């Protein structure tokens, strides 16, 4: 713990990431260039955090000198990371905004398959909440209005890459499905 208080700054969030229940990364953004700059360090960090937090569903923890607030739902884990001197309630408000907005987009189905089906919506939501480490918006209603995303009727998972990209028969075939692309 620190004896000096934080330098006043809008940069509050150091990282945000979403993991599945095996600890694999589904989405992650790191906003502090000095924090884990390489992919290897990032994945290492995520693994450590996952190991320490996925068993108990507590909301907040202090690991590797950083404050981490987190939430889980069915088979997903959401994390927001800030400095140890940061106001924890501010980080919580970011986490709540993220979770509420995603809940709405995924029609309450906050689980892995649905998340991957609507990945573009997820990317846009995160982009509207945090920009470069600064909290851009904290009200889920505002976020949803700006993103204006409707969940897909023909989710990506039920189409093959081939069908999405119209390849010819010489290229590698993934699982073929009979659904046609609208």
């Amino acid at each position, binding site marked *: 713990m620190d004896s000096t*208080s934080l330098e006043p700054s809008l940069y509050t969030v150091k990282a945000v990431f979403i993991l599945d229940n095996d600890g694999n990364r589904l*989405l992650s953004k790191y906003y502090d260039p000095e924090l884990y700059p390489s992919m290897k360090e990032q994945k290492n960090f995520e693994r450590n955090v996952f190991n320490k937090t996925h068993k108990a569903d507590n*909301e907040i923890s202090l690991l590797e000198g950083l404050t981490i607030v987190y939430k889980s739902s069915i088979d997903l884990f959401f994390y927001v990371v800030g400095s140890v001197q940061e106001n924890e309630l501010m980080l919580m408000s970011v986490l709540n905004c993220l979770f509420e907005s995603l809940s709405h987009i995924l029609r309450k189905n906050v689980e892995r398959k649905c998340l991957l089906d609507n990945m573009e919506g997820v990317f846009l939501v995160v982009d509207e909440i945090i920009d470069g480490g600064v909290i851009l918006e904290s009200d889920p209603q505002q976020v949803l209005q700006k993103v204006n995303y409707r969940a897909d009727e023909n989710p990506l998972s039920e189409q093959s*890459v081939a069908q999405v990209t119209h390849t010819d028969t010489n290229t590698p075939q993934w699982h073929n499905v009979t659904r046609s692309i609208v």
Partner: protein
Amino acid sequence: MIKKFDKKDEDRSDKTFDALWKSNLIFLLTQSRIFNETPINPRRCLHILTKIIYLLNQGEHFGTTEATEAFFAMTRLFQSNDQTLRRMCYLTIKEMANISEDVIIVTSSLTKDMTGKEDVYRGPAIRALCRITDTTMLQAIERYMKQAIVDKVPSVSSSALVSSLHMVKMSYDVVKRWVNEAQEAASSDNIMVQYHALGLLYHLRKNDRLAVTKMLNKFTKSGLKSPFAYCMLIRIASKLLDETEGGHDSPLFDFIESCLRNKNEMVVYEAASAIVHMPNCTARELAPAVSGHNMLIYYLTALRYAAVRTLNKVAMKHPSAVTACNLDLENLITDSNRSIATLAITTLLKTGSESSVDRLMKQISSFVSEISDEFKVVVVQAISALCQKYPRKHSVMMNFLSNMLRDDGGFEYKRAIVDCIIGIIEENPESKETGLAHLCEFIEDCEHTVLATKILHLLGKEGPRTPQPSKYIRFIFNRVVLESEAVRAAAVSALAKFGAQNDDLLPSVLVLMQRCMMDSDDEVRDRATFYMNVLQQKQKALNAAYIFNGLSVSVPGLEKSLHQYTLEPSERPFDLKSVPLASAPITEQKTELAPVASSKIPEKLAPSRQDIYQEQLASITEFQGLGPLFKSSEPVQLTEAETEYVVRCIKHTFAGHMVFQFDCTNTLNDQLLQKVRWEERPCGVHSWNTV
């Protein structure tokens, strides 16, 4: 062959997923020719963009050429009016800005969107544009940025303000010109725009304390609505208070105190934390802050955590202030969040009475294995403080600490425990035997060389004075047989100390020492042979000089003297007496006991004051011919502390010269002292020559 997709087969569906999401990135990129189709199919393009961003996020790599090609292809997508597709284009631009060349090709499209009619595009377009802008381009779009900052649409204003902040690093001078616009934006009703405007204004003005003070006064009076802005104001105010060393009757402090009564818990917590962090807070001032925290304990986990963490910090300096919360803290001991429980217990340990110690220790031991290393260290430090407070409880503590030693844990954790045990041993002679026994058990299986050598050193110092020193010899000799070179060397030194102090053990020690002389490492052999010879003389004086008392000269001083000696060839042998004695090293006061943040820089030993002076003087050419520094005096104040400038004098004694060092410090902030002259008035009959 087309297989029918069975929707009920969940496993297959998952495999399809993974196959799709892990598909080859390069393969995907080659498909970006899709973007060139007319008419553009938004859904297919969207899917491809999504997958590109996803795979980039997973760590897949792009080559620059492929990235640039894909980027160019993507620019065609601006022709579509699909909102989500356009938004994803902005996102792709941001993600690929670093890996693709000629990104500025999209500047005109982005500028068009930024100033267009579709409000929903303007904010994100601004953010994307500012991500790819450089200094020259920035001046070209300056007009648009200024308009955007004062725009009525909140998302546009916010985006412009935040992007301006990001660009301050790159072009401070340009962004500084937008201060007036930012000021206007700060009077917006929207809570996020207020926050962003305030943040940008502070960042632009933070080197000008007067401007910051004025800004703060204006905003604290005008009553903002945004809780985020309030938190920012509180931090600015406490930083100002810190810099000006303002007292608690300053209006800034009143402002922070008034925030304790704000409706939003985030603000209350920020204010309470700020007050608690102030260096000279009395218990009376802390009381409202503490009760604010107490109230927070009943809310959500995060609030509980925040509250209890701050109470823990308060308890370190003002334990009496926190006793009011003891009842509520006790309820938190059984909290499911282990971090909260640990902090609650350690706070109680600081503020509780002797009778509650047993009960609390039992509760901690039940879950200590589940908490993270950082919190384990916090617990150990709390126990250490407790041992000093209640020396009679040392046996309970010692038991607990030895159990913790046996568990798994990192280096910092084990070190904290070992230090704690050593502390108890030094304070309490009755606990010495148990303590040493626990430490012996620990080094049997310890992987940290630093700890093992430290414990061996301690055993060498304390072991011979115990009633039965022989039982420690077995432990020490095992280390000689089993461990690494550094540990073996330390074990040999420890053995020698036993031999020197206890005559009846001397024959056995000599036998063991003989075996050490066959060791594979030369340091170990050297030490063994040296001690063997000294011990065989059987002279108390020799033992005292060479085995008990270590090097009493300062190590950097010795190094310098040896270096000097090698430079000037001399007939006389090197004289250790010419090396200055070691003065006490400057140790840092550990006032805050806290979870250890993982630091990448290893700790360096604090050099002694004399060594610092030696280095400084040696770097000045005029002083290099004077030889080694013998002694430096303490600084002597030559003026009073309240004058405009303060002068201190330090006398350095060399072999044939005296150097006077005058430190002149200016106590006024806005004045520069120039042309400082020094006059000397010799008094009395001294045969000194001024050089």
